């Protein structure tokens, strides 16, 4: 099958307007006849469920958490970009579009990114109307800041809790619709399968996480807004529950998975303190504005950092990237830190950390100013590590943070299975090979508030599928399959815990397919993952039973999917013989160690088709055509 992105014709700036006019509408009185299932209740899921219900569709929304307000969007700290140009500093829709395309290392779809920049301003209006308490100036208007190295101030924020406030806005809109009876909410319910009837997505199979009951739900369209797959690395800044199950099981039902190798590593996280570590915590990148990154010059240095004299320290970012110094982009800073630690110069437990030193900033600005700027971050650091960063340098290390890859979708956010729409981090569409700071919140809400409500109507008006109910044979088959899988997991009765498998997989992925990848390391991972998977199905120990709240069983199902998905991620990384954004292949770098893109051969989206458990997946390519922008090379020297 060939991939059709369904990008509207015409000039870039008019594509979305033209498309909105060309799309067919559903009569207001007919909307209530269409059932929509939304899986996930983060920014994308909650905004979509609320907006669709407001339009009159009958919506059911599912989340595995105990409440829709807990989705991991809530943890986003920094802010949300929008091309409002309130500060009068030269921002525009085109500039936001261009920055996003360039930041994505020219591996995103032009038309989608332009639309994202266009609707960004509406998002801010919407959120303010909902009561999101964005930061303001004394004159009463909204405050903006520059974020992630952007040259304009286009980021809106609510203290360090922007994700929380945006999610609560969407959650409240969703709750209003639940209260009105327009949305049926199913918390503590996990999606286990997609049901496809006559080639169209017609429902899902879920497990009630309290009773263990497996049930089927039919609809006229299914929307997945189930987030990213960062937890394939076990340790990441994602929440514990984040998983790939929904999008991976959709992939097995025919929804191609695009660009899984585009994973983003964030440079300023608190280092791992031991084998017990369950997750990693991000600290705002803004710390690098005043902190200096260094490691000792001598291997096996045992002195306290304040006893190491200046000439025995290597300020490696300032040395390698004199013009950007400590503010070098995320991927570059992360790789440089890894390199220092690989050379045996790392600090702290296990040698996996580098210093982020504020001594100079405190000398220059005084402790009070540093406290005013970063006090909450220093407090958070102390809470976790027990160390006072005003006295001794912080220790930081990179961690997996966001995944740009996801289910392949066309311009309408529909996957290769008609009627299956995928939104937010779960799809692949807007960030290319690298996401810019403050763009994830923008994309999640753009998809849910301002894109899907239009495109889903066009699908209903044109697909004209007959009604199905859960009595259909496909639903029965999917329910049986889900129950059989649960039974199988409970019946292995081996010796190793789920966490031990997940941890081993994560370590393997981090070492072989993490910040720097090579043909040899990827081939080794591709050999090791099937072995680990085979051991999982022979030697896993899951306690308890199906018909009760069983967190061990939930984790087992998710790890089973990670063990399959990890192979696709490595295969994609092996196939993409270039370095771009979050994907760095050591064979493809400039003489001074920078990522070397190969536009001639790799300017395409890799969309993978699942062909069954014993067959290799098939690669489909969607060429990336740039009508407006000229591809250039990033340089931070």
């Amino acid at each position, binding site marked *: 099958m060939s991939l059709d992105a369904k990008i509207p014709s015409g000039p870039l700036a008019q594509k979305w307007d033209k498309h909105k006019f060309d799309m067919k509408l559903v009569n207001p009185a007919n909307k209530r006849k269409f059932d929509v299932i939304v899986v996930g209740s983060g920014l994308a899921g909650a905004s979509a469920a609320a907006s669709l219900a407001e339009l009159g569709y009958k919506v059911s929304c599912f989340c595995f958490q105990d409440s829709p307000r807990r989705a991991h969007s809530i943890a986003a700290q920094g802010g949300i970009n929008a091309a409002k140009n309130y500060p009068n500093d030269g921002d525009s829709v085109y500039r936001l579009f261009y920055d996003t395309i360039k930041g994505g290392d020219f591996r995103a779809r032009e038309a989608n990114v332009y639309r994202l920049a266009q609707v960004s301003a509406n998002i801010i209006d919407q959120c303010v109307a909902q009561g999101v308490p964005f930061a303001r100036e004394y004159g009463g208007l909204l405050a903006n800041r520059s974020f992630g190295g952007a040259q304009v101030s286009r980021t809106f924020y609510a203290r360090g809790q922007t994700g929380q406030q945006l999610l609560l806005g969407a959650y409240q809109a969703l709750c209003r619709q639940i209260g009105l009876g327009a949305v049926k909410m199913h918390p503590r319910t996990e999606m286990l399968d997609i049901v496809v009837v006559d080639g169209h997505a017609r429902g899902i199979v879920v497990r009630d996480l309290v009773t263990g009951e497996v049930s089927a739900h039919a609809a006229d369209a299914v929307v997945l807004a189930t987030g990213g797959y960062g937890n394939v690395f076990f340790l990441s800044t994602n929440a514990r529950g984040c998983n790939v199950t929904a999008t991976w099981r959709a992939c097995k039902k025919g929804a191609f998975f695009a660009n899984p190798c585009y994973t983003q590593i964030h440079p300023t996280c608190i280092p791992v303190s031991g084998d017990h570590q369950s997750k990693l915590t991000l600290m705002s990148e803004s710390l690098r504005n005043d902190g200096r990154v260094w490691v000792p010059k001598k291997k096996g240095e045992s002195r306290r950092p304040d006893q190491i004299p200046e000439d025995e320290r290597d300020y490696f970012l300032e040395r390698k990237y004199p013009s950007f110094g400590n503010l070098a982009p995320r991927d570059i800073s992360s790789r440089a830190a890894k390199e220092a630690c690989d050379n045996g110069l790392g600090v702290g437990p296990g040698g996996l950390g580098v210093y982020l030193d504020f001594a100079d900033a405190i000398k220059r600005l005084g402790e009070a100013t540093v406290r005013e700027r970063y006090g909450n971050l220093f407090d958070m650091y102390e809470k976790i590590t027990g160390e006072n960063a005003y006295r001794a340098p912080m220790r930081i290390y990179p961690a997996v943070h966001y995944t740009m890859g996801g289910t392949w979708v066309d311009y309408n956010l529909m996957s290769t299975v008609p009627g299956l729409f995928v939104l937010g981090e779960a799809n692949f569409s807007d960030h290319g090979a690298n996401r810019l700071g403050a763009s994830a919140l923008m994309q999640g809400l753009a998809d849910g508030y301002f894109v899907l409500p239009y495109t889903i109507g066009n699908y209903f008006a044109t697909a004209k599928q007959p009604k199905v109910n859960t009595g259909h044979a496909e639903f029965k088959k999917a329910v049986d399959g889900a129950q059989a899988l649960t039974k199988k997991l409970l019946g292995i009765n081996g010796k190793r815990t789920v966490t031990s498998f997940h941890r081993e997989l994560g370590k393997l992925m981090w070492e072989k397919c993490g910040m720097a990848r090579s043909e040899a390391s990827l081939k080794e991972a591709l050999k090791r993952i099937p072995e680990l998977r085979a051991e999982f199905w022979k030697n896993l120990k899951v306690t308890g039973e199906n018909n009760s*709240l069983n967190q061990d069983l939930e984790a087992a199902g998710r790890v089973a999917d990670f063990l399959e998905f990890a192979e696709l991620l490595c295969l994609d990384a092996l196939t993409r013989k270039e370095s771009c954004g979050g994907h760095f292949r050591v064979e493809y770098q400039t003489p001074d160690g920078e990522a070397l893109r190969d536009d001639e051969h790799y300017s395409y989206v890799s969309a993978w088709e699942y062909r069954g458990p014993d067959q290799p997946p098939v690669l489909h390519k969607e060429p990336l055509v740039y009508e407006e922008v000229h591809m250039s090379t990033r340089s931070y020297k």
Partner: protein
Amino acid sequence: MNFTLKVWRQKNAKDAGGMVDYAATGIIPDMSFLEMLDVVNEGLIAKGEEPIAFDSDCREGICGTCSLVINGVAHGGQRGTTACQLHMRHFTDGQTITIEPWRARAFPVLRDLVTDRSAFDRIIEAGGFISVNTGGTPDANALPISKVDSDRSMDAAACIGCGACVAACKNASAMLFVSAKVSHLGLLPQGQVEKDRRVAKMVAQMDAEGFGNCTVTGSCEAVCPKEISLSFIARLNRDYGVSLLKGVK
């Protein structure tokens, strides 16, 4: 470090439940409280016993999922800290630690330390929102809002909905939670239009869920991981009084 844990185990909502002793050994001070429980659970699974069920997700203090009463105090008694951000270095080697679920009639126990807090969602569904649909909203800067009001609104909006306030209250009152939402929206001009209706509906739902009344002991504020101020309850009472006088239902 080694600890003796006394943990509430309860098979399901109908089971009577009771405290069970466990030994937590080889714990290192840098572990979070939940990582300590992870270690204990790994040991239980290896022995073929069912692990202790407890809720957690983000493990960075913002999602509001974790919900443990530790040594009698919701979230463990470190000021402004959720259980997931509480670290073992704050405990004494050899100490006995009791761990219980939130206890309130409106938060029934589902299993072990996991409770059903959907009553909070139903309170928000009753009125904890501003009734605007997607699209057609005015420009965000069309409505100037005093920075003082906006900051105060944000203080209230910081609530993570964990329910520690209810767990700490001798009356199992949800007033701090409800007051935080009523104040977050009521302090903003966008929230004025349906202010009376909002407070009336939310308080009615709060009562229907079986939460108790507020007797202003302040235990909620003391355990709140986001340090939501008790003064918002005064605001809630005022707003509720006004809605009663106006006869709003």
